[in-house]
């Protein structure tokens, strides 16, 4: 297992220029567009284990990558 390290977990950085909102692993929350879901955690067996993102503008992590995944790579 990856060591618990706050940088590679979603964490608040108010005003970050790498917010979850612009990250390719992020997809919006099903109900409230100001929240989101992180899909970066992908299991070797094909599972996509999501994490809820309370605030997509101010959360970030070291895995941030600009862009958008195709629907085919989401759930």
């Amino acid at each position, binding site marked *: 297992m990856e060591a618990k390290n706050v940088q590679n977990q979603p964490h608040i950085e108010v005003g970050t220029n790498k917010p979850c909102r612009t990250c390719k692993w992020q997809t919006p929350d*099903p109900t409230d*567009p100001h929240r989101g879901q992180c899909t970066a955690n992908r*299991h070797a067996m094909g*599972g996509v284990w999501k994490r809820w993102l309370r605030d997509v503008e101010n959360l970030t992590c070291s895995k941030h990558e600009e862009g958008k995944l195709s*629907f*085919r*790579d*989401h*759930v």
Partner: protein
Amino acid sequence: MNQMVSAKVLEYRGKTLNFTPEDPAEAKIPAEELHEHLQKPSTARTKRLKDRCRWKHASAGEFIEKSVTAGIERMRYLTEAHKASVGQPEPIRRALGLANVLNKSTLVLQQDEFIVGYHAEDPNMFPLYPELSHMAVQDYLMSDYSPQPASEAAEINEYWKPHSLQSKCQPYFDMKDLGRMYQVSSMEAPSFASGYNSIVPPYETVLEDGLLARIKLAEKNIAEAQKVMTTFPWNGTTGLDNIAKIDNWKAMVIACKAVISWARRQARLCKIVAENFETDPKRQAELLEIADICQRIPAEPSKGLKDAMQAKFFTFLICHAIERYASGYAQKEDTLLWPYYKASVIDKTFQPMDHMGAVELVEMERLKISEHGAGKSRAYREIFPGSNDLFILTVGGTKADGSDACNDMTDAILEAAKRIRTAEPSIVFRYSKVNRPQTLRWVFNCVRDGLGYPSIKHDDIGTAQMKEFSKFSLNHNGATDEEAHNWVNVLCMSPGIHGRRKTQKTRSEGGGSIFPAKLLEITLNDGYDWSYADMQLGPKTGELSTLKSFDDVWEAFRKQYQYAINLCISTKDVSRYFEQRFLQMPFVSAIDDGCMELGMDANALSEQPNGWHNPITTIVAANSLVAIKKLVFDEKKYTLEQLNQALMANWEGFEEMRLEFKRAPKWGNDDSYADPIITKFYEDIIGGEMRKITNYSGGPVLPTGQAVGLYMEVGSRTGPTPDGRFGGEAADDGGISPYMGTDKKGPTAVLRSVSKVQKNQKANLLNQRLSVPIMRSQHGFDIWHSYMDTWFDLKIDHVQFNVVSTDELKAAQREPEKHQDLIVRVSGYSARFVDIPTYGQNTIIARQEQDFSASDLEFLNVDI
């Protein structure tokens, strides 16, 4: 390259059965591309219409086809009317809103089409509904599909914030509870937050009476009510009721007149195009014919099949997309269209045509539905991956006297579905032992072509259920014993009445989901969700150290479930309270005989209770409970704490332990250890607790176990579970279907397991995947027919089939562009396989492909 047919033979009752294709030409088709060879549109026109169909499939919240966006006209004209009608009675404001949209919106007329009408200003667009949920519209504004001009759309959404259903309902709940629902991990978000809805429109009144007759009725009722109000001696205890009734009837008149003039605008458009622009004389004549139909229909009663199809489509657009959004395509189509089929095809008294003319008309209808766009919230763009919306119609079954309800229209509907091969609309077939063989053959032909539909429902169970719910009718006018035969699936799975009255009008009656897998996960963590949201997701029901016995775990789960289901149903009823005050449906009310008679809005009137809610992911929870009981409490191989430690590590470092939990007995194998526990789970908790609740209509709420795409979404929001599942893996794909790949004892063991669950259920989805060579062989029909009769005798509510090879599915993953016609059954709906995310595709490949052994055939008593 594998050929389609394996060399498989089977010894059975002293005979050698060879599973070679019934059609010898098929032997030459490679297994990887079979489905690309099965479409056979009945005319060149329907082939063209399919080739240029503007699909609007969504997956993972995104539209797959480029250039699909939200339109602005509906929200613009609705808002304009809302501002202009301040001070008027609310039902009348709603009718004026509908009228403004219908009077001003741009009409769409497309090449080649015979059934006309659209609900947005461009065939690549769909409307939005800011009066429902401002969050759902906000999501569109922040997406690539925003209506334009975006600033105007944002202003409109801002205007609706205080008036929307969402804003009306939210104050009556704790935001902490709603926040839990909005995540869609243990509960589906309430309809006031998503805007999702479903309905069974009373099409019958439009086709049989026409809207002019409905207007006359409403005007007569207004006159009578006004007379009562001026008659001596005045009685204030009843006389004042007439105020609301008069408002409702007036609103009905406005709505019906608006729909007639909208249809006549379409007539004028067709005439203008025919007379000024169309150069092909054949198409010119056809456009004039369409103009004639739209001039008469739906104002007047339908006289032939073309009339009926057009009247039905206009009614669909108003009820499902313009007056208010509602998913679904619920109707008993063969019964509804039979009189018009008879007039046109058999008696040839109006719009004469032959049977193939009817088939072509149905193919065109299917393509109209296939390009219908739904302005659904993101949640619903995620949870039916590969589809545009849940469009499901019902055929077959029995008439009021118990005789076979199948007719030649049933066959035309099924033949058209087989020929044109579209994922939508899906079809439900009500299976009864009195159904005629020729129609059963068409059902089978669709099934074995891999369409995934008809999905099959047990006719007697549905009818008995309508009778049972009728007993709770608050106005003692539920379905009669005869009317109880008039049922259709409202959406994927739940039966509801169809006809001139007593149909379901709002999803606050039935619909919405609850997710036992997540509830079990948090049960093991004192209600805390460590794996997705990192927050308290349910009540505190005990730390692990306090769960000393299996009963403690069971009862802790029960409390989590009670909390969640109570919230789900109370949010639905609060929605309904406000729907009837601010979201009246004057058009739907006008075409319902009950609303017309009583002067009531369709959201308010409930004659036939039909409460249901969908447990989804039940089997992951149930298999997990079985594994806990066996390995923790019976055999004491592990403690709950050890289990929890392994789960928190996503089984990493605990592989041997995971395999033991994975090998614990699983549902669907007729297992004497697992089945009693799981049966009790369904009957005592899932159904037993739910039915303690009484909803708005006065009846109990019962579980309709199914899956849609939520088995994937919720799977991805659920951590590792004690059934040996990793965090984020998909959950079970049907209400009562075995977990994918774990039903190892053959198709009849699945039937035996499933048949054990009988009490406190409304419906339960059973997915089965059958062998392609067996189904396409000369013995396919006999085996399937015997299977169906056994299924019927075992009193199982539902079954549906995938008949597609793993080779073909994998080939489509490699080269999607070559497999555009490969359709699969996902759960309560079918989809083009290439439109589903890889995650979901893999769940379909992983389903157990059922072969039949000689002992299976013996159990089914197959007579070959």
